């Protein structure tokens, strides 16, 4: 059988996971794989970027050990930017002019930071000016580390997931951080208004300045073109020795668009991650599925598993379904979790809210047809994993909705069986103490408790001590 040539453009987390899934299906026995990545290093774990800020290096967060690709005969082209693709000719070209053939092609080009409309962001060459950086890849983190210095001021623009992570990272480096967000409340995509307010308040308590509902107009420069602040729409200036832009991401689709592959916000794909063009697929942050582009791991990993099925030719009818979103993070010690919708959408949607203002704890459930449709948790997300399971499974909610916020085990049996060997309950032992048993030996003789493995003898002794007044109780264990 002819070996299939598979080319993957992009060498990020999605590609890494896709290769893992293909490996698990032993797909490399019948395909030759080439990966084209623009960055100089191997695929790394973007979620752990804050380690670079803390002083780690790329090696600490690489997704695959040295030699992993080689062992599987996967060709990885680093610093190889793909400049042109011809799906019809089944060829692609890299920046240095080299031509590569493929039978199947996967776009995993990911995304790039979205930049705000602000004056002074870029130099005449179109690069961000010194002192200003995004928060997206290893080189951004290296820049951030270079610009940051203890005791100085930083402004982070964007109050979503990335912005909060960046603010936390800089605060950990000892900087005084202000966060400017255009919307009224933080993390407005994942949290409702109350949740966002609670989060903002908790962050402020921890010393991060929160400015919401503000439009950032431009960078303010001092002598020698050094960044000294950010100007807001009302003229106020936030002092800043450095500025981090974290207002969001946008799918990287220009290569696909130039190659006549249908593109909207992302590269359009169906349930099989197929673009509609013979042999061409897309997945990850660059792909748009039923009108949605994803930026979190779980849905993208699900896409990887589906595409691996499709590429290895298993006619199992693998299809990517809409993923259940679950976001969980801890920002400067504040736990935040969110899943599904954060505001009721139907007339019959039930809403349960628990607000603990003093403790900055907020919990909200949205229930539709007796099932969890969404949840917002700020301050204490201990029950989030259990809720996530309910949300994922769409189980019926308990009749008392608050039970869903409680710890799963309510320990009814604590104080139940005391001697497991002989199934003697605490109640039985207490009854015998009441009618006159005063030594461990007597209790054992009457009830059998403690005659087995003996591991309950300490508990029996303390029951005796707690429930008798005589001083002569013999409790040698």
């Amino acid at each position: 059988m002819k070996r299939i040539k598979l080319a993957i453009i992009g060498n990020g987390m999605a590609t890494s996971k896709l290769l893992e899934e293909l490996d698990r299906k032993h797909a490399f026995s019948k395909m030759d794989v080439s990966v084209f990545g623009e960055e100089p290093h191997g695929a790394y774990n973007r979620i752990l970027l804050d380690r670079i800020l803390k002083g780690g290096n790329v090696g600490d967060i690489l997704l695959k050990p040295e030699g992993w690709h080689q062992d599987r005969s996967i060709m990885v082209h680093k610093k190889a930017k793909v400049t042109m693709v011809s799906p019809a000719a089944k060829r692609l070209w890299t920046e240095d002019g080299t031509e590569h053939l493929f039978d199947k092609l996967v776009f995993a080009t990911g995304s790039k930071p979205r930049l705000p409309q602000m004056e002074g962001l870029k130099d005449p060459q179109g690069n961000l000016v010194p002192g200003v950086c995004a928060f997206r890849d290893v080189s951004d983190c290296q820049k951030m580390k270079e610009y940051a210095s203890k005791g100085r001021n930083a402004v982070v623009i964007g109050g979503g997931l990335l912005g909060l992570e960046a603010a936390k990272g800089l605060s950990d480096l000892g900087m005084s951080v202000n966060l400017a967000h255009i919307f009224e409340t933080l993390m407005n995509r994942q949290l409702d208004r109350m949740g966002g307010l609670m989060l903002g308040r908790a962050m402020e308590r921890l010393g991060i300045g929160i400015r919401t509902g503000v439009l950032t107009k431009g960078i303010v420069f001092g002598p020698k073109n050094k960044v000294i602040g950010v100007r807001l729409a009302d003229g106020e200036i936030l002092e800043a020795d450095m500025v981090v832009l974290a207002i969001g991401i946008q799918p990287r689709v220009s290569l696909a668009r130039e190659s006549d592959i249908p593109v909207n916000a992302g590269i359009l794909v169906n349930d099989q991650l197929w673009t509609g063009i013979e042999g061409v697929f897309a997945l990850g942050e660059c792909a748009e599925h039923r009108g949605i582009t994803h930026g979190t791991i779980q849905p993208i990993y699900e896409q990887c598993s589906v595409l691996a099925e499709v590429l290895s030719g298993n006619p199992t009818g693998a299809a990517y379904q809409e993923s259940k979103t679950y976001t969980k993070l801890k920002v400067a010690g504040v736990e935040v979790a969110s899943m599904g919708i954060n505001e009721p959408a139907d007339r019959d949607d039930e809403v349960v809210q628990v607000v603990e203002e003093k403790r900055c704890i907020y919990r909200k459930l949205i229930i539709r047809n007796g099932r969890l449709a969404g949840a917002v948790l700020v301050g204490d997300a201990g029950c989030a994993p259990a809720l996530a399971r309910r949300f994922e499974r769409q189980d019926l909610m308990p009749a008392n909705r608050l039970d869903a916020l409680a710890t799963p085990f309510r320990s009814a049996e604590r104080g139940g069986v005391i001697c497991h060997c002989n199934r003697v309950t605490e109640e039985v032992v207490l009854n015998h103490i009441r009618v006159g048993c005063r030594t461990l030996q007597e209790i054992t003789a009457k009830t059998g408790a403690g005659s087995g493995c003996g591991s309950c003898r300490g508990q029996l002794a303390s029951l005796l001590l707690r429930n008798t007044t005589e001083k002569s109780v013999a409790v040698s264990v």
Partner: protein
Amino acid sequence: MFALPQLQPVRTHCPFCAFQCGTVVSPEGNQIRIEGDESFPINQGRMCIKGFRASELHNRPDRLLTPLIRNASGKLCQASWEEALDLVANRFRQLRANHGPEAVAVFGSGALTNEKAYYLAKFARVALKTANIDYNGRFCMSSGAAGNNLAFGLDRGMPFPMEDLPLAGTILLVGSNPVETLPPMTHWLQTQRQSGGKLIVIDPRQSATALMADLHLAPVPGTDLALLNGLLHLIIETEKVDQKFIAVRTSGFEAAKANALGHHPAMVEQITGVSESQMRLAVDWLGDARPAMVLSGRGPEQQSKGVATVLACANLVLALGKSGKPGCGYGCLTGQANGQGGREHGQKADQLPGYRSITDPDHRSHIASIWGVSPEDLPTKGLSAFELLDALGQPGGPKGLLVVGSNVVVASPDVDRIRQRLGALDCLVVLDAFANETSEGADVILPVTQWMEETGTTTNLEGRVILRRKVTDAPGQAMSDIWILRELAKRLGVGDKFTAQDPEDVFAELAKATAGGKADYSGITWQRIDQEKGVFWPCPHSNHPGTKRLFLDRFGHPDGRARFHATPYTQAAEEPDREYPLYFTTGRNLEHYNSGSQTRRMESLVLANPEPVLKIHPELAMLHGINEGEIVEVESRRGAARFVAGISPDIRPDTLFAPFHWGGMGAANLLTNPALDPISRMPEFKVCASRIKSRTNPDLCLGEGR
């Protein structure tokens, strides 16, 4: 011969679990009395209710007393030994002549003594000349064994003695409930906690053990692997990795690390339902300055990714540098009485005595020379337990089966299918002391001696070889399995290869066969076991003290290093869906043992725990209108089973739990999924998709075979 004291108290061991408590048995007229042996180090006089009451197995009216042969009208009739043995030998010889040697298969047991296990393995290869021998330990220890071999290069369930538990600052128990399954171990866990140690339990149920723990993590069934990977992620993130240990004593860390870093806490939360804060607490305790142990039970092992999950446990202790040191390490808690010894002496399809490999030419020629055959005459690797049972009576599959001490019609996954397969056999021969669900369909039943009527060795969960002694004579015509195998061997024309008759002589042959193997018993004698209260293998010569603690200097791989493995998380073979929305998982109760063929006939145990109780969360019970004590029906894609509802908040609301000790309609294994682990061939007993009948039928009863 080793002297057997009579009519005075005899120091021996319990017939049930792998703890093999030392007992003192006193004959009292027609009865016997059993007490804990205070001088035996691991139980120190402690015992559980099963051990105390084991006397109820003595002098039972329902004991098998003579050979039974099924006659032309399908009825089991008494027969003489001569008749029965001739019949079995003739039938097996005919099958072999017509269909080749693989047409007769053997199914052994982790309940057999080392001597019986060894003889059975030899009988299969030398007398029947079949490759098809496997045993119920495949359903028990195979994932732990394979994981131990891959990670540490040697499989002894616990590489350290029980007495080391109190040395550990933290013990992580993964999917194990020793308070009910190995009750005297509770004492060791309590001692560890009293000396300031922490106990962490991973279990989807709030088991009796989870209740006594300092921290209980309750993952969704089948997600232990994701949780363990998540713990390694946090160990790396919080810089608790022991770089020096990794550099000097291990290999492969980079791959394990890369995999673990892909298991971000938020993702692990979503998969497992365990919160990040609990995971962090667990990692803080495991990673503090004190020694730590990770011990696993069948929970993580009886999965279609059981080996990967065991390897993830090994990764944890290796990354923390807590292995091969006192109070440290990974251990797999053996379940059956001789689950450890049973897998070392050749009952497993791919193994030969001394933990040798049946595919290794050197190993084959060593064993062939001991057995007096040529290496070419030894069969190769046969089918694994489930695959073997599933092939019975099928085209190309075995047509005759010899079952020794195992109740496969209760103990196998998808048990109704296995019952049908047994029905398709030309000849089923069962060796047992009591009739059970498996012998119901037998063509020939041969009555055997039980533990207090014979002498022989077992190897407990610590790898300590111990001696069970005879207390009383066997009733009726019951005979030892060793005698039966010899008699059959004679009739099959190889009597000269089975000269050892006394168990002590069989042990001497076994010890010789294991010389130079991984599980080396060659320095062990019954005399030494008696004097030293058991001897730990490996014990390669008579002056060797035995090996209480393994890996102190080097691990079992040729380069002396332990191996990390990348263990990516995968889902269970069958996840709940719209049709079957609930997880179903199985386990044990304190009062019963395995398929229950002994404990379900012991009055005091039946009184304490008469019926299979389905654990169901109050929320789920309310949803389905189920009341406490009602009989409910649970269905999976493989069948339906009936249980008594036990409503309790100690289980996840998305999960049902039932014990597997009952047969008939109450058999939990009617539901379980026989998806196999790719390496160990362990079936996925611990996870399948199920549903519960929404409203119970008032006429439902538990049916036959309870």
